[in-house]
């Protein structure tokens, strides 16, 4: 079966809590950042993105924060639901490049 979750950092929360998933990137030339959600047996699904000229962007129940000084990205999920249980990946793209660099992912487990 699907084993993409092995050896991943795991965040366990209760339904209704707010979740914060963190990501560090290494390339100071990165100018575009994306969060993806991957459910078991599925491909990564786009959640939210942010450009380097912003430090915060909000979507529906999700907020992405970017701290370029320390090269850190976070995804905040408000009122976490069991359907939010998945592996979450951050990705960044260096300016002028066509490719993304993906983090190794964090598994979010939401208990009812």
């Amino acid at each position, binding site marked *: 079966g*699907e084993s993409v979750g092995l050896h991943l950092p795991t965040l366990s929360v209760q339904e209704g809590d707010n979740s914060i998933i963190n990501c560090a990137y290494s390339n100071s030339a990165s100018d575009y950042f994306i969060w993806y959600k991957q459910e078991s047996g599925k*491909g*990564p699904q786009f959640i939210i993105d942010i450009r380097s000229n912003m430090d915060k962007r909000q979507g529906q129940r999700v907020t992405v924060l970017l701290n370029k000084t320390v090269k850190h990205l976070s995804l905040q999920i408000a009122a976490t639901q069991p359907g939010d249980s998945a592996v979450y990946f951050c990705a960044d793209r260096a300016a002028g490049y066509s*490719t993304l660099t993906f983090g190794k992912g964090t598994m979010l487990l939401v208990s009812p």
Partner: protein
Amino acid sequence: NAGVTQTPKFRVLKTGQSMTLLCAQDMNHEYMYWYRQDPGMGLRLIHYSVGEGTTAKGEVPDGYNVSRLKKQNFLLGLESAAPSQTSVYFCASRPDSLHQPQHFGDGTRLSIL
């Protein structure tokens, strides 16, 4: 609108066999990508294409070849499969615009015995 479609969804091969994985997108996207995903390794880029008739190597290209004869299709070939190529393969595409996310298919699960 199907988005990104990968075929087949599952396949088992014997060492030394060859096969081709097909990725099709109906969004008129210029860019297409092939990744492999292994436990604890995240997504690693194999090859990509910035337009019809173009291909480029990614992070882990050895043992794979690709072709982009039509804009909507991106083929990934394994000429002589090895057990180390057992993985889940994902295809993605994106438009030719700055700051656009890649859209992924649901993967091909490939086992090499």
